[in-house]
Every structure is written in structure tokens, then in C-alpha cells.
């Protein structure tokens, strides 16, 4: 396959790093103001299949140890090739480049940073034509829907300027399209059954406004994958009839869930943590957890290494969320879904979110309505549920209005079973003697929880990970 390429091509080279001292040349990177890579869809007759051209100096004529500008333009065409797939296909450039021995590719779009090692250069990797040949071969093999592929490497700064300008515009228009695409605008969603190899009853439904739980697969990725391999683990779900726009229930999604989960799951609400919430396997990025006392949601991401406001840690709640089950109020989510306008839409969206770690709140600042943002408590503001409640009242969080209109919620919080009723027994403390006569203490169940004191051992790593 790669007999004509002077270096090895394979997965094994993916993690390779080329250090400065071992570098023949650097292409793009922080020292070059203008660099880019882009995939553009062209009309079938506008490009020549298999054409690789180099505009400007080739690698062989570059000075050792120096950096140069670079633009990589991959033009593609085919009956089933849509502009929506450009971004997905573009990411393959990174992947394929890194299969090449001694050719390190970092970042994407206008940020690319490539280094070629001296070793590989000495083996004969001295021209972009080899890089182009590798990409061409891999594109053809992996993506047979590409009927024509033409690749251009531009190192001439003047020529690069033109491509760079066009690329920036296209990135922007692509992003705008991705941001603006609504679930109601499309006819198909995508299902992902990859995780069924570990969680046999779970499937993810991927829509423009709901990323896969793992955060790795967007609707565009789903579209590309299903287009390339319709029998594969990522498949098309025709939306069909919309049963509930607010909750996000569609007959097509229900049917697909029923079939793929072997009847375990019959209905799915895409935008709610209650009723028939979307299931999770185990690799969700975060959890939205219902806090009954506040009638709102806490959000916690996988990386948060402390207990949350309800006294439970991520790992403890994750245990209630996973395994392809529908559990009311414990909802596995991706970070990208939290940037969606449909995030927990049926439950009130961010107006229902009452707690999240400070770092997460900051990260999502642009997606949280400014009116709610300051009223969402963080671990820095509150540690317990009572503290949370007073915080919400003080900052007039939208849920507080809901409490007033929904008295029962408030009652539920007060209605705690007392283990020991002290009504008949005088409570005295501090130097006084307590005398109990004919007292009877009855409990249906006593839960004994160990007091978590720091271990008395002399080791140095005690609690060191809690930062």
C-alpha cells in the first residue's frame, strides 16, 4: 500500500513526538502567523482525482531547523459528499498525518503545527508529494464516498494568503451552521451503539442539539459515519412524528430505542431528566442530578474531586446513572449538550440549575443566561442543602418562584422522618445530668455510618489528592 513511501506508515506512530533538536523543519506552528488546513467540497468536474500539487518550495529545499508557512487544501467531490461533512473529513488530516513515521501533526484548522524529524528526512521523506500520497490512499480506503480527491500543499506565502482568507471564512460559516442547526431543522438523527459492546442495553441518540454523552460524536460526525458505513454501529434514525416538542419525544427515536435495547427502553425524552430520560453507558462527561429540597439540578463533571452539595461525589452518583437504565433525576450528559439551547429544556434548562462547581460554571458562562448565572451556587458559596436554599433565596434564583407556587415541594423537604423523637425527654447539656426514666427509643432502622476521620497512619500521602 505504501511501498513507494520512504518511511513507515502505521498506527504505531500516532503518539510520536518530534523534539526541537530532532527536527528537520517545522511547518506552521506558533512562529508562523498564517497557516491552515481545510477540506472543501467541489463540483465533480472541478477537480482532478489523485492530483497532488505543491505551490512554493518543497521540503527538500527548506533549510534545516527553520520554520515555514503551510496551507493544506484537500478538495473532494462525490455524489454523496455534502458540505456538512467537510469538518469531519478535515479532522482525518490530523489522524492520517500522524500515521507517518517522524511526521508530527498537532492542532487543526488555522492552528496547525507540524514537525518532520531529521531521521525521516534522511530516509527520503523530502517532499510533500509523499504526504499527499499517504493521505490520498487513506482517504480513498476509509471514505469510499469520496469519488475525487485533489490535494494542494501551499508554502508560498503570497498564495497561502488567499487560501488562508478563504479558510477563515469557511470555518466561520461552518461554525455558524453548527451553532444554528436545530433539531427541528433536520429529518434524521443518529444512533450510536458503539458502547453496547460494554453496556448492551444503552444507545445514544445524537441530534444537532444533543451530542453523544461521551462528548466525542456530533450530529455531523454521525452523519458522516452513517453515510460511509450504513451497516455500522452509528446509524440513521428517521425522526418521524414529533410527539412532544418540549420534551423531545419522537416516534422514530422511540422505535429505534425499543429495537436496539431489546425492549428495555420504549420511550425517550431527549431534553428531560424525568419520565423517560436518555440513558447512559458509563463514559458520560457529567451528571445532572436532581436536588429535591431545592427542586433544581446540580451539575457535576467527571473531573470534580470533591463531594457535591448533596453530600455525594461524582462516582457515587455515576453509579446510579450508568448501565443503560432510565433513572429519574440522575442524568448522564456531555459538556457539549450543556452548550445546547435544548439542554434539559423540558425541565426548565438553566433556570432549573442551582449548583455546579465554580470551574464548570465559568467554562459554560457564555451558555448560561446572564440573569441566572450569579444565582447558580458553586462549591465556594455553599456546602450543604440548607446553605444552598438560603443562597438561592438571597439571589432570587428562578426556582425560588417555583417553590412559592408549588408548596408541596417545600413540604417534602420539611417532612423528614425523625429517628429519635425527643418530645418527652428534656434535653440538657453542658455539665447537667440527663435523667431518662422509663424512656423507650424505637427505630425502624438505624443506619450506622462511620465517621470519616483522617486515618491515623504515618504515611505522607494522606488525603494528598484532595486539592
Amino acid at each position: 500500500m505504501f511501498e513507494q513511501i520512504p518511511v513507515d506508515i502505521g498506527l504505531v506512530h500516532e503518539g510520536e513526538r518530534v523534539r526541537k533538536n530532532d527536527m528537520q523543519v517545522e511547518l506552521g506552528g506558533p512562529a508562523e502567523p498564517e497557516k491552515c488546513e481545510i477540506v472543501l467540497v467541489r463540483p465533480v468536474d472541478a477537480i482532478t482525482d489523485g492530483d497532488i500539487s505543491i505551490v512554493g518550495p518543497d521540503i527538500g529545499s527548506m533549510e534545516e531547523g527553520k520554520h515555514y508557512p503551510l496551507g493544506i487544501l484537500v478538495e473532494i467531490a462525490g455524489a454523496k459528499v455534502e458540505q456538512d461533512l467537510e469538518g469531519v473529513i478535515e479532522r482525518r488530516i490530523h489522524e492520517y498525518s500522524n500515521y507517518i513515521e517522524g511526521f508530527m501533526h498537532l492542532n487543526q484548522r488555522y492552528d496547525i503545527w507540524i514537525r518532520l524529524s531529521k531521521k525521516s528526512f534522511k530516509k527520503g521523506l523530502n517532499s510533500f508529494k509523499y504526504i499527499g500520497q499517504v493521505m490520498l490512499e487513506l482517504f480513498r480506503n476509509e471514505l469510499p464516498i469520496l469519488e475525487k480527491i485533489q490535494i494542494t500543499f501551499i508554502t508560498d506565502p503570497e498564495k497561502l494568503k488567499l487560501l488562508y482568507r478563504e479558510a477563515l471564512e469557511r470555518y466561520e460559516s461552518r461554525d455558524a451552521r453548527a451553532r444554528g442547526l436545530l433539531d427541528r431543522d433536520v429529518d434524521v438523527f443518529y444512533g450510536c451503539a458503539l458502547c453496547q459492546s460494554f453496556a448492551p442495553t444503552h444507545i445514544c441518540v445524537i441530534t444537532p442539539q444533543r451530542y453523544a454523552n461521551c462528548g466525542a460524536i456530533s450530529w455531523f460526525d454521525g452523519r458522516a459515519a452513517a453515510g460511509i458505513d450504513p451497516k455500522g454501529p452509528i446509524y440513521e434514525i428517521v425522526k418521524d412524528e414529533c410527539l412532544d416538542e418540549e420534551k423531545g419525544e419522537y416516534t422514530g427515536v422511540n422505535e429505534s430505542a425499543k429495537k436496539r435495547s431489546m425492549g428495555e427502553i420504549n420511550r425517550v425524552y431527549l431534553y428531560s431528566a424525568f419520565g423517560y430520560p436518555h440513558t447512559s453507558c458509563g463514559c458520560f462527561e457529567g451528571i445532572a442530578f436532581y436536588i429535591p429540597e431545592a427542586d433544581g439540578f446540580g451539575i457535576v463533571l467527571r473531573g470534580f474531586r470533591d463531594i457535591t452539595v448533596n453530600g455525594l461525589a461524582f462516582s457515587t452518583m455515576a453509579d446510579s446513572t450508568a448501565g443503560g437504565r432510565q433513572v429519574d433525576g440522575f442524568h448522564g450528559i456531555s459538556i457539549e449538550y450543556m452548550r445546547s439551547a435544548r439542554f434539559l429544556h423540558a425541565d426548565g434548562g438553566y433556570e432549573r440549575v442551582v449548583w455546579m462547581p465554580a470551574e464548570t460554571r465559568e467554562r459554560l458562562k457564555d451558555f448560561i443566561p446572564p440573569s441566572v448565572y450569579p444565582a447558580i451556587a458553586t462549591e465556594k458559596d455553599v456546602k450543604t442543602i440548607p446553605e444552598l436554599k438560603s443562597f438561592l433565596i438571597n439571589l432570587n434564583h428562578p426556582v425560588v418562584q417555583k417553590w412559592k407556587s408549588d408548596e408541596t415541594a417545600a413540604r417534602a423537604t420539611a417532612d423528614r422522618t425523625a429517628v429519635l423523637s425527643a418530645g418527652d425527654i428534656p434535653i440538657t447539656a453542658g455539665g447537667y445530668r440527663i435523667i431518662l426514666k422509663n424512656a423507650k427509643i424505637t427505630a425502624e432502622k438505624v443506619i450506622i455510618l462511620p465517621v470519616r476521620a483522617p486515618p491515623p497512619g504515618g504515611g505522607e500521602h494522606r488525603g494528598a489528592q484532595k486539592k
Partner: protein
Amino acid sequence: MVNALSRKGVNLSIKELDSDIARFRDISISIGAIRQDTWHEPMGPTPFPTLSTLRNWDHALLKRYKPFYLPFCDLCCLCTYGKCDLTGQKRGACGITMAAQQSRIVLLTACIGAATHTGHARELLTSLIDRFGSDLPINVGDVGVEVEAPITRLVCGIRPQTLGDLEPVLDYCENQITQLLSVTHTGQEGSNIDFESKVFHAGMIDHVGMEVADIAQISALGFPKAEPESPLADLGLGTVDVKKPVILVIGHNVTPSAGIIDYLRAEGIQSEVEVTGICCTALDITRYSSRAKVIGPISWQLRYIRSGVPDVIVIDEQCVRTDTLLEAAKVRSPLIATSEKNCLGLPDRTDDTVDDIVRGFVEESIPGALILDPEKVGEVAVRTARLIAPKRKKQGADISKEELGRLAKKCTQCMLCRRACPNDLPLAQAIKAAAGGHLSLLDELYDDCVGCGRCESACTQKLPVHSLIIAAADQKTRTESYCIRTGRGPIQDTEIRKVGGPIVLGEIPGIVAFVGCANYPKGSREVAEMCREFAKRRYIVCTSGCSAMSAGMHRDEYGRTVYEQFSGAFEAGGIVNVGSCVSNAHIAGAAIKIASIFAKRPLRGNYEEIADYVYNRVGAVGVAWGAMSQKAAAIAAGFWRLGIPVVVGPHGTKYRRMLLGRSDKTEDWYVYDARSGGKVYAGPVPEHLFFAAETKEDAMVMVAKLTMRPNDTSKGRANKLANYIDLHKRLVGGIPPDVHLFVRSPADIPLTMKDDVTLYLKDHDWKEQPIPDPTLLPRLIHKKRV
């Protein structure tokens, strides 16, 4: 036994109770139920399994992986009928066959291993409870670890929350080991497969014992708690300040060594004495104190003691050279034995005063003492080291180069040394060259030598052959300076969650654990090389025990050890050192947690279902490249029962049998598809359960192959195949001849190898196969809901 932790209906009445704060009269307290906590998980089918409870599962595995015997000894000499010759079709006086006898010895071996870990766990737990109380909470990873004791939950069906909760777990282990050991009595069991099933049982018990030991010490002694970036510790004698008094600890039970650290801390003299270790005690003492240093694996005992650097030698249990007293005497270092299991004939001085014992040592009136009190050991060792160091002046037993030449000339070339060498090193030739002034041949043996010293016993001229090698290698031991990541303990639940995506998306090809002893065919270098290669290929690499040290004893072209080159997290390309031998439980634990984390399979007393899950879905492989001990055999057996294959080095054949699958027998490789209920050919994955590789190259190709599982997504399989094919091409040559057995659909073919593989498939009459939702258990077939 289950009820020991969830009592029902407690009634308590008190007629009179007077205390400082209150007086009570006629109180009656009645409580409906006391539960240890709020564990809602219902009890599974097999809590506290006995010898035959999981027999069906074992037999299902053993049907695929039939024992392939490599009799290390053709005779049985366990009873007075014997010796019985079992060759050919002969039976022994009791009627036993060769096959059953071999499996019987394997069971004996596994029992020794399980007993050793469980005994270690018991001693440790008893002393920790004495010190910290039985209510000390178990905490092995704060909020990052929800499932604190996956193996105990799985096997016993209990969730231990305090040190005291671990006691009934060990009661169970001890009971089972006794039952298992009794099976090896003459006339107890006649079927080799039933012996093997019991080997699996012993292995499972061994894992429970290991888990108890490690979670107890992590919780009580403040070891790193599931920290991905636990600190790096010094490794090698070159990191030791030899001007200071030096204490050497050898063995596996950290208690006496912790006593030494405690005493140094209490006296505020930590910086004045070097505490160095060999074998697992060394690993565990670095988890306790950042100042402690690891010298090297078990094979470093002779070379380190003979260097004369250690002023006091403290031994505890397991894998301690039994001639340590003799070696210690050669360099005038007093020896302190600290374990009832390992007294070495020394007088018991436990009840004597510290002053008396120290005086005896310093005046050299006694060569060693047995002290069964860790606190006393700490004080005696430190005080003796400080007093004796100036007197000893690090006098070693190693020899100079001049002496080497002189001694080498005495060699008669009888070749007995080479015959005695487990690795058949060309000793006589090298000594001959040394006699002629050429040291390079002898020098080259340094890295390959496993330090057993058998050459010296064999030598008719009484030459210190081992020391000759060290001398020729310029006393290399003295300058070795590396690092090792201190044992982190368990894998965090969140780390497991994070790798779920990359595994199904084909970014992580599998999990490879390098564990076990240092009986390597070609030195420790090969372990380091394998670790580096698999981490580079973005496998998750785990290490433990002596292998963890060996992995750190080599540097790459930039001067980095693998612990500096790769992260310590459980992620693609991470090198995760879990810790000592008993920390191996966390590797099995991680596999078990995968089932609970992704599929929410209940763990509680649910062994068979979880093992079926791990076997069919978790692409993990263990490599015990220098497996030597009975403990290593038991650890391997625990992995087999979970369905995790183990690859050993060439010495592993001496464990008497392999468990090999037959990829040519198509009928062996059907699984149930839990979705359809049908039987589906899933290919020979994993092909073997226990395999001895001749060379490092064979091992690496086999490891890549054994990470494949029937549930692999196409992306996952493509990545696994890419590594398997690439390693085969590089290390053996050409496309592996069985590659067609592992491709189920065109999407399984690695992208960069599409042409070659497609061509190969065409030549091998390949047909597309479905990817099942695999299980060996018909009861797990999904019942369709209407």
C-alpha cells in the same frame, strides 16, 4: 457469615446506667434492623463460594483451554507408596494419572501462594487493628473510588467499610485454603479438570487475600490513594548516600519497616539514616515514606548485600533468600528477622531490652536476632545502624578487578557453573576470558544474571562466581540510579469512565499488566522494553511488584525511565504502577469495575456473570515475564478464573502445564449472542489462557493477539489487529498466518493495512461474521420484553 454484617432485630434494655454525663433507668431500645450502611444491591447467587460453587464456570473455560502438560517431574513422591512412575499410561499406587498429578501439584502451588498472601493479609490486618482499632474506615481513594473492594464484593457479597469488616473475609479465605489444601491429599481427587477447577478457586481466594492486605494498609498507613501522579521514588543503589548509616529491608510485609520509619520520625533523624529495600517491602515502604529507596528486585539481594553498603539487614516474609544470614555475616551486618514465618534459627529476643540487643549487635557477639515486635525492630535497627556504621566502614564482600584475574585463573572449566545456571549463561567461557585479562564477556552477563547464586554452590573451586560478574561489571550495582512511580493502589472509577470512549472508538487497544517476579530469561531490560513499546502503542500498561522495578531500571535515548516518559494515569499510554504483589488485586479490581461501571452489572456475590463479562469484553492481558514463585502461580490462577489470559516467560513452563486454546477447532469458539439467543462463531479470542513465550518478541506478538475479545467494536478490533499485525511483521516477519480468524467484517481491517489484509483474506476463504453480544452463559440471554 453474611449476617455478621447485617444483624436483624436488636433489642437492648438497660435497668440502670450511670455515667459521667447521664443516669439512665429502665431504658429499652429496640431496633428493627441494623445494617452496616445503605448498600441496596441485592445479594447475588454465589456469596462466599465453596470449592464446587463455580465449578461449571471453570469447566466452561477449561473446555476451551485444555491443560497442556509439561511434566517437570515424572514421578509422584508425596506418599509412602511412592515414588510412583507416571510416564506413559502408567498410574500411581493410588490410581492417579500423570495429568491429574501435574494438576495436583499446580493446586498445591496455588494453595501455597494463596496461603502466603492470606497469611500476610492476616498478620497485617491483626497488627493494624491492634494499632488503629477495628473501626478505622476503609478509604482507598476518597471520592474517586466508589467501589472500594471490588473483589471482596464480588466473591464474598459484602461491602467492607472498616478494618474490622475485613476479618470475616479472611476467615473465609483461610477456611477455603484449608479445604483446598486437603484436596491434594492422597486419594482425594482423581480428575485433572477438577483439580484445575480448584486451582482457579485457589487463585480467586488469593485475589481476595491480596485485596484485603492492600486496602487495609492503604487505609491505615496513609499510602497513596488511587493517585495517578503518585510521587516518583529513587531506585538503585546509586541514589543512596552511602556515607550515612544504611538499613536494608527485604520481603513483603511492611509493618517492621514502617516501625523503622516511625522511629526515625519520632527521633527527628530521618535525614541521618538511609532506609533501602529489596522486593515488595521496598515498594510498600516508598508508599509510606518519600525518603525510602528501592534498590531493586529480588535478584538484587546478593549483589547489594555483598556491596557492604547495608549496615543492618531487616527481613520479614516471602521471597527472602534463606542464606541471608550467611551473606550478612560475610559483610558483618547484623540481621533482624521479624516474622514468625521466617525465623532462620535465630534466638527470639522480642522480650529483651533494646539496649541489650543493640549492644549484642554492636559488639558483634550475636549475628542476628528474631524480634517479633515492629516497634522494637524500628528502634533496634536504627540505633544499631548508627552505632555500627562507623565500625563497619561499609566493608563489603565484593572483589577487586585484580583479585578477579587471580581467581579466574583457578577455574578448571568443568562447566558445572553453566549447568547450574537457570539461564544457561556462558559463565565458564567468560571466566576463561577474564583469566586472560578480557573482562567484557563476564561484564555482559551482569544484566542477564538473575542473582540466584547457584553457580557458586556448583563451583568445585569455591569461586564467588556471582561476585566475579559484579567485579567485571565495574561494581555497576553501586551506580545504578533510576526512579519508580510509587504504588498508587486502586484505579479511580472516573479513570475507568474516561477510557470507555477511547476503547470503543479504537484509540486504546488494550490493557497489559507486567507483574510478578524477576526470574527473567534475559534480565530486567526486556520488561522495560515491553512496557515502553506497549505504552508507545497507547495500551494502558500496569505494573506491580518486581516487574515494576525492572520497568524503571532502563532509560530511553533521552535518559528517561518509563515512569518519567509516560503518565501514571490509567489512560492510553499510561504506565500505572499499582504497587507491591498484593496490589495486583487492583488490576483484577479494575477489570471487575468495568462491568459495574459501564453495564451496571451487580457485583455482589455474582462471580460467574462478572467473570463472563470480563472474559468476553475486557481486553486485558497479564505478563509475568519472570514468574518464579508459588504466589505468582496463584495470582495467575485468579486472573484465569476471571477470564484474563496470562503470558509467562520461558521459565513459566516449569509451572507444569499451559492452558491453550485450539484455534483450528472452530466448534470451540462459539458464544451465545445475548441479543438473539443464537450461537455465533466469535473466533479464537482470547486464544489462550496461559501461555509461555520463548522470547520477548513472541510474548509481544502474543500479548497483542490476546487483547482481542468477541465484543470488540470494529474500530477497536481494527486497532488491536493493527498492533498485532505490525508487531508480527516487525518481530516475526510477514502477516500473521491466522489473521483471517480475527477479521469479522471489512470494517475490522486496519486502514493502513487494507490492501495486504484484504488480499490475505481472499486467499483464506474468509467469510463475514456478525459481532455478537457475547456470553458463555445461556441464562444471560436477553429475554425480549413485549
